[in-house]
């Protein structure tokens, strides 16, 4: 039965991969751009899922990290830096800032923590807007160049899409591997019962900081891709709205489920596009769909799928990591 369950998981995964690989030949440039956006946002959501879904630490500052990453890349590449150093710098500096922001997480809980991070996001946004000498203020930074890989430019839409997709694959693999390491185990312990974890020698303080920092780092990575994707950076996209949107991606997808963010990002990035047939009402349609989703599958889409599958099968070994089971952990 775990077979059948695993089969479904792997089947769906394989289908998704194939789709993503051939997508550029099915869509017009607009569709390709949207898919690239999806890939970039998914990376940020995976980061948040680490912090929230696995380590159980809520953060409303993810947009700030995407922003920091974007501005680092935008600022440096427009001043002649090659892309890759800025890519590393973006990830690393966000990791560092995330680590610092993690400290409040050690003192406060739940909505207080949500709030400290929310405040941080607002402050960062104002810095982006007000410090014109650094960020270009409300004028933003124009003509962010797209990188080239081994001398091969990925400036054109389709190559750049594959560029983003490759990064998504990379990040997913790394995260998957991380979550199967003792760290992943410790994160889950942290989420489910910090006090017991502490009594088993799990240094919850350190793991909390790590969870925050890793989440932030991935936010930064996604930012360093967002800048060359849009090629123009100004403060507006990095306001609180995006943080809430990323939270939405994680929860709607199924927080704590490895593939949750992927589906969540589909909902947040693609759904509004699909509802556009409703003309002026598309945002309302989107809002209603989100509300219905939450009412009918509060544990997110993967939680829902997981329940359906468990209903059709008995509890099954959680060793070999099929998506469905990974989800279950």
């Amino acid at each position: 039965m775990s077979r059948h369950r695993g089969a479904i998981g792997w089947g769906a995964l394989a289908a998704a991969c194939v789709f993503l690989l051939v997508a550029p030949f099915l869509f017009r440039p607009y569709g390709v751009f949207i898919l690239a956006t999806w890939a970039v946002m998914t990376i940020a959501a995976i980061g948040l899922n680490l912090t929230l879904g696995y380590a159980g630490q809520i953060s409303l500052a993810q947009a700030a990290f995407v922003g920091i990453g974007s501005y680092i890349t935008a600022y440096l590449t427009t001043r002649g830096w090659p892309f890759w150093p800025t890519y590393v710098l973006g990830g690393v500096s966000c990791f560092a800032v995330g680590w610092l922001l993690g400290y409040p997480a050690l003192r406060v809980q739940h909505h207080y923590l949500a709030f400290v991070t929310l405040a941080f996001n607002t402050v960062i946004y104002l810095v982006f807007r007000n410090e014109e000498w650094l960020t270009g203020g409300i004028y933003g930074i124009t003509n962010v160049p797209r990188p080239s890989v081994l001398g091969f430019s990925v400036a054109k839409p389709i190559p750049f899409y594959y560029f983003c997709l490759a990064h998504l694959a990379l990040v997913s693999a790394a995260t998957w591997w991380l979550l199967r390491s003792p760290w992943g185990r410790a994160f889950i312990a942290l989420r489910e019962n910090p006090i017991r974890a502490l009594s088993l020698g799990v240094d919850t303080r350190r793991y909390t900081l790590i969870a925050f920092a890793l989440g932030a780092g991935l936010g930064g990575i996604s930012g360093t891709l967002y800048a060359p994707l849009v090629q123009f950076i100004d403060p507006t996209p990095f306001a609180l709205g995006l943080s809430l949107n990323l939270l939405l991606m994680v929860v709607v997808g199924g927080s704590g489920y490895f593939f949750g963010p992927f589906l969540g990002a589909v909902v947040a990035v693609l759904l509004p596009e699909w509802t556009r047939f409703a003309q002026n009402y598309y945002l309302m349609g989107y809002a209603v769909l989100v509300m219905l989703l939450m009412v009918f599958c509060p544990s997110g889409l993967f939680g829902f799928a997981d329940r359906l599958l468990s209903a059709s099968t008995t509890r099954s070994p959680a060793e070999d990591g099929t998506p469905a089971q990974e989800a279950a952990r």
Partner: protein
Amino acid sequence: MTRLKFALGAAAALLLAGAAAGAEVKFAYVGEISGSLAVSGGNFRDGVILAVEEINAKGGILKQKIALTQYDTQTNPGVARAQMQKALDGEPYAVFGPIFSGNVKVTMQMMQQAEVPHFIGGEAAELVTLGDPYLFRTSFGQQIGMPKIANYIRDELKAKTLALIWVNNDFGKGGRDKLMKELAARNIKVVADVSTESGQVDFAADVVKLKAANADVVFVYSNEEECARIMREARKQGLKGPFVGDTTLLSQKTIELAGDAANGVQGHVGLSADAPIPAVADFKARFQKRFNYIPDHNGLKGYSGVYAVKYVTEKLGKFDRKALAKMMHGLTITPKEEPGILIETSWDNTGEIDRISFLAEVINGQQKITKTLPKLGK
């Protein structure tokens, strides 16, 4: 209510348009329908809609009906880029919007590559300096408006010091930076420089600052409802004017919202639905009838933009984007030639626009034009 009817109507119209395919020319509105610039964007869009409906009612352009599609940028560059791409995938003949200068910048390159003329609402100074041969303004940039204002402050008001309150978004900041330059050039000292948030409601603190500066002139540069709130608070705290502004401060909307508090404000009106021109007044009436609210200058921008395209295309006698763009450069359209243009308008070869503008003052709840400033070209 009527908005609901309109919305349904629009939807229906769309279906019909789909059904009665045949010879059509595609126009696209890509701009802010939701997000922080929804008001300006909505006005601009409704202006475009009004013009398109009128033209279609009269049989379209070169016997082809206009099929208008709307794309909402949510006032977010990322989305704007995606939506503009979507619009371009539909190969429109001309694009109208965005209004948010950031969104104009993020889409400019694509437009250049696609060689599609676009009529923007953005007023940020640098937009026309980025060398996009397909970009055309629908109202002039702040670098044209502000010198006129600076002159007015120096010559008419004889002010030595000025207190400045502005809204911290691309519109307010852009104008503020321009004005600062112009004032400096005329050595008028800015003794207070107060930044406010768009959507801000409590201006007590900001007015206290303005008061403390006690300058010869108070310059108010924000969107209509914020202008109104600022004026109310200013009167409440007994802040002495004179209050000077540009377009928004003197718009009918601001007056309506501010009530008596708006009386006595004066300044420059670039493009205004309140301009003392019969054609404009007539447009305002039609617009209000159609959409049940008073248009601001963005309504005029969208409207006249569409008519400019109509005029040039009919002059060319064919739908040719390149030719359209080429002809627009250095072109002047008078209301005699094309009534829909409302006010005589010229474009230079950067896509910058030139129109007459006005000096006005609010006298017991009415905007009174005190002086008409000629086009710079003349």
